[in-house]
């Protein structure tokens, strides 16, 4: 048992076998739904309704993917998910960029230019991430109507920036709190001003937290459904809303394989980010919940 000797907790051979078995079964539990989606998204419909969902496809086809992307009936139009995918992109990119930049500046001010009651202000910003968004739906719908942004991507950008600031500020504030204040003082003596200190001293060291923040905001905004469904149903809808429309549409035969392909398409951007930068994703999750 040489591998066991180095660890802090000693476990017996049988216990270890049990642990491995449990861990593997759980891995199966997490993987199974996604595996089934992938497998069944490349089967013809007949194989799904008549066959076994666990079975690998007898006839491999990418038809469902093409249909989900460009021809499937979403709502009333047979457009596929493509236009909605681009809606989401057009919404996510500016919303993430703006909320991250604002969060960085806010975090900088709240840690390095402290003033009276700054913690209370931050508390107000932070609490805004946790409110049930139902409480703002009615007035938001009114305001977007008044601003002429109902149903538009711009409206959703505004909404996501507003409700994303709390978290992005939280990330940068916790990160900059650990950034040595002496550096800021040294830069002040050197003659750097408010923006120069941010731009020349803090920004170059903010790479990791920016990645964390961008990933968090990207995942959250991409995956949002409530705001999308409330303020942009129709042709301006984001991907999640379109997917739901595709899956829930009651007309005609339920094309499960197309639904799966669509679901994977909707999940793909965030999954890719997770695979590429999972480490930062986890850090973001942690920073949003446990002490920084």
């Amino acid at each position, binding site marked *: 048992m040489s591998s066991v000797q180095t660890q802090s907790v000693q476990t017996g051979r049988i216990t270890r076998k049990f642990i491995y078995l449990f861990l593997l079964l759980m891995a199966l539990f997490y993987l199974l739904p996604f595996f089934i989606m992938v497998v069944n998204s490349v089967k013809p419909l007949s194989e799904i309704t008549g066959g076994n969902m666990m079975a690998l496809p007898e006839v491999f086809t990418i038809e469902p993917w093409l249909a989900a992307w460009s021809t499937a009936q979403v709502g009333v139009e047979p457009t596929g998910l493509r236009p909605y995918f681009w809606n989401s992109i057009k919404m996510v990119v500016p919303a993430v960029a703006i909320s991250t930049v604002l969060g960085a500046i806010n975090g900088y001010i709240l840690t390095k230019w402290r003033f009276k009651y700054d913690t209370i202000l931050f508390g107000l910003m932070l609490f805004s991430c946790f409110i049930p968004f139902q409480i703002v739906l009615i007035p938001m719908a009114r305001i977007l109507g008044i601003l002429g942004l109902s149903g538009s991507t711009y409206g959703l950008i505004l909404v996501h920036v507003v409700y994303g600031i709390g978290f992005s500020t939280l990330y940068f504030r916790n990160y900059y709190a650990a950034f*040595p204040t*002496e*550096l800021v*003082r*040294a*830069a*002040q*003596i*050197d*003659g*750097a001003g408010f923006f*120069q200190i941010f731009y*020349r*001293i803090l920004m*170059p*060291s903010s790479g990791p937290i920016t990645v964390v923040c961008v990933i968090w905001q990207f995942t959250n905004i991409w995956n949002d459904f409530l705001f999308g469904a409330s303020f942009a149903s129709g042709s301006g809808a984001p991907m999640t809303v379109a997917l739901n429309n595709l899956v829930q549409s009651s007309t005609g035969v339920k094309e499960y394989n197309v639904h799966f392909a669509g679901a994977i398409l909707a999940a793909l951007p965030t999954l890719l980010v997770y695979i590429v930068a999972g480490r930062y994703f986890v850090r973001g999750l942690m920073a949003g919940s446990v002490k920084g």
Partner: protein
Amino acid sequence: MGFLDIKNATKSYGNVEVLHNVDIAVEEGEFLVLVGPSGCGKSTLLNMIAGLEDITSGEIAINDRVMNGVHPSNRNIAMVFQSYALYPNMTVAKNITFGLEMHKVPKPERDEALQSVSKLLQIEQLLDRKPGQLSGGQRQRVAMGRALVRNPDVFLFDEPLSNLDAKLRVDMRTEIKKLHEKLKTTIVYVTHDQIEAMTLSTRIAVMYNGYVQQLGTPKEIYDTPENLFVATFMGSPAMNILPASVVVKDGLPHAEITTSEGQSALLPFNQENMSDWAGKDILLGIRPEAITDPDGVDRKSKTVVPISNRVGVTEPAGADTFATMELAGKDCISRMRADADITTGEIFDFVINMDKAVAFDPQSEMRIK
């Protein structure tokens, strides 16, 4: 009127006053050390000089210019921080010239200044490295280079050696002293280390509880401490403070104390006005090095008193041997030559050099002058 003039400066946070009416005039070329335990207000005072904290009341002037409300970068000062505060993303060269760049000094002049400073500090080979690639001592040098290149009126040092290991600290201490002697700039230096204060300064301000307890040359501070705090804070091991009463014998004032054997010993003062205290209790302050073995006595001292006492613990420290004993009911440390013939638990003939003794009023804790 000094070159750096601190007049009646006070600092409060809300209703709490943390620095009370500080008055210090620093001459051009002086090396002033602010020393005291943590929380005494020395760093706050330094930050006020730098402009990193505002002045609640009073005035700070540099070179005849009142600096209240002036931005740190417009005070013509430079500061070396405890953590060095080197910009982690910039090379050493960029770190040093960043301040010049911010002050819109043209590139050729910046390069020239960088050249001369890096030569002075012997860091020419480090200029392209990032701070993360430097050792502690090298970072220290770069931090000094960043301060030097500005050619400021006043240098401010905030515990610059406290992050270095013991050996390097001694080396850098010497180097800072050499640099000061060479450049003759005005320096204000904060430390909690009294040895640094003694070795580096031309004058020391000992601070405690937001007050300047004493301002004077290292010798004044060491030999004639203004009060009990200064007496015990400066010097290592600390000055022995022994309760004694004053008696007049043969027309001269003496301090009467009890030895470890319960006998009373009379120690003559070298200060005639101590007769005024006849019959009263005082606190007698004697530095460890003023209690020695008979062969260790300073030849020049005038008032030397032998005293027999039982030896407590002996601590050979290489160059010297420290011996504790009980005197006036207190533990008392004495400093012997290394080869003094001294044995734990035996009676030994100590010698006290009363030239160096000082007396304090037990009530006010001030030195009796």
